[in-house]
């Protein structure tokens, strides 16, 4: 959706996209008609890939992310014999055309695939979403290793929100077969499948920050930026909040300095967004 439909505006947008965005944002408007506080509509589908043990596809505006969870049997590490593994991997699919940016695994302005992998892995582990001890089958001998693969299919702005939501939904949707130990060998029975025991889960909201001029005191904060808006903005703030409204992660990369009031505003917004997403997940899981 473009704000203005006149031909001249469209031509100007085609010829000078950066200037167009700058002028719109400086006036306080957004290209698709949202307010600076509004997020795009989110769609969530779970369990669509039968080849994976658990899957989810998230669509936020033009961003589309798919996630698949596959379980494998592994030997636990000697230092933590009671723990299983959750191995997360995020990659930008070739179809996004993002390999032109040169990062291995693709990337966009703020996040390359490696940095996304690291951030989301940290959040999932630190929020104690899944207790690794529940993944253990026999202490010191056999445990589950969950491979969570997030694939970004189309990228319209920082995709970290969509990736976290997809990973969380896929893990909630995942079912693993039951395993019994029979004379030192694991016996997997594909007939029974159990859901994973999940605790509180993290949900991410990202904000792009920009300043009209260096001397300006006010900072413009845009919730859920699109690709064009992100290109214009110099920094990004990502806030992870659990489903029971506790702050579990705060990341700020680049951009102008923010006051604690600005940060508090963002946190409040993130909490509101989290309640909406919780409802979405609950509706989808039914």
């Amino acid at each position, binding site marked *: 959706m473009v704000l203005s439909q006149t031909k001249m505006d469209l031509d100007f947008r085609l010829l000078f996209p950066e200037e167009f965005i700058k002028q719109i944002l400086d006036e306080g408007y957004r290209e698709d008609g949202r307010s600076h506080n509004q997020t795009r509509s989110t769609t969530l589908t779970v369990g669509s890939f039968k080849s994976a043990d658990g899957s989810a596809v998230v669509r936020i505006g033009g961003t589309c992310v798919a996630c698949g969870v596959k379980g494998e049997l592994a030997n636990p590490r000697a230092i933590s014999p009671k723990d299983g593994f959750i191995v997360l991997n995020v990659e930008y699919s070739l179809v*996004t055309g993002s390999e032109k940016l040169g990062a291995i695994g693709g990337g966009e302005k703020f996040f390359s695939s490696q940095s996304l992998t690291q951030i989301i892995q940290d959040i999932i582990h630190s929020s104690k979403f899944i207790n690794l001890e529940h993944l253990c089958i026999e202490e010191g001998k056999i445990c589950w290793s969950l491979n969570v693969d997030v694939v970004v299919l189309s990228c*319209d702005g920082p995709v970290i929100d969509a990736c976290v939501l997809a990973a969380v939904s896929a893990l909630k949707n995942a079912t693993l077969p039951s395993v019994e130990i029979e004379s030192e060998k694991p016996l997997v029975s594909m007939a029974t499948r159990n859901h994973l025991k999940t605790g509180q889960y993290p949900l991410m909201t990202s904000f792009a920050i920009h300043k009209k001029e260096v001397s300006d005191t006010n900072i413009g904060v845009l919730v859920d930026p699109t690709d064009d808006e992100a290109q214009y903005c110099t920094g990004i703030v990502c806030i992870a909040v659990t489903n029971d409204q506790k702050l579990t992660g705060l990341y700020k990369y680049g951009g102008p300095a923010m006051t604690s009031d600005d940060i508090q505003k963002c946190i409040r917004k993130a909490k509101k967004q989290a309640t909406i997403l919780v409802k979405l997940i609950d509706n989808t899981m039914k």
Partner: protein
Amino acid sequence: MADFEYLSPEGLRSDGRRPQELRVLSCNISHCLQADGSAYLQQGNTRVIATVYGPHDVSRRSEAQHDKAFINCQFSMATFSTSERKKRPTGDKSCLETSLALKKTFEAAILTDTYPHSKIDIFVQILQSDGSDKAVSINAITMALIDAGIPMKDYVCATSVTLINDTPIVDLNYFEERGPGPELIVGTLPKSGKIVFLQVNSRLHIDNMEKVLKEGMNGNQRVHTILDTLIKKHLEKSILT
């Protein structure tokens, strides 16, 4: 597998289809606005996304050709697409080989001399693999190229065929692909009936080849009708909105 019946005595396959019956084909065109052309194709349980970028400038001088466009095709499979987790989504030998084969196919189908000194990027991602990956990829790429408005000689429609109990079976699923019979993947330009993609795996007796090839081409004609209808519907929708 001796106990797995590929073709029942009544002439039905394991998923209840007749030997020449194709799987249900559905397509979503232009879903990705960043790309010049995109298509999401679902044939049975095989799901493929194809995107096309171009024609645009070449990224390396060595790619520039004075008389035609340079086609770059890359094929990848999501790690969760197969029942056994695929460790390397792209870059392994079979993906590279498929990328090269697809590139050569579309070099023959696209009118490359209309865009000299430029590059057309084609990217394919398999999201779920249930047999006939290459054939479904070719169909998806055709739709994406049409969506991008790149001039082509004709649609490129592809199907996979095998021979079980002397009956050619079209549009294979995962089990039929790994079955005892030979596998033939054929891609054609439907109007002229010319073959642009042909790959035979496993042993196919020369006497059976003509029969199997003919069935494949009939299958392609049916795919062409479906794809054509889908494109026209999409066009109507996009003109009205």
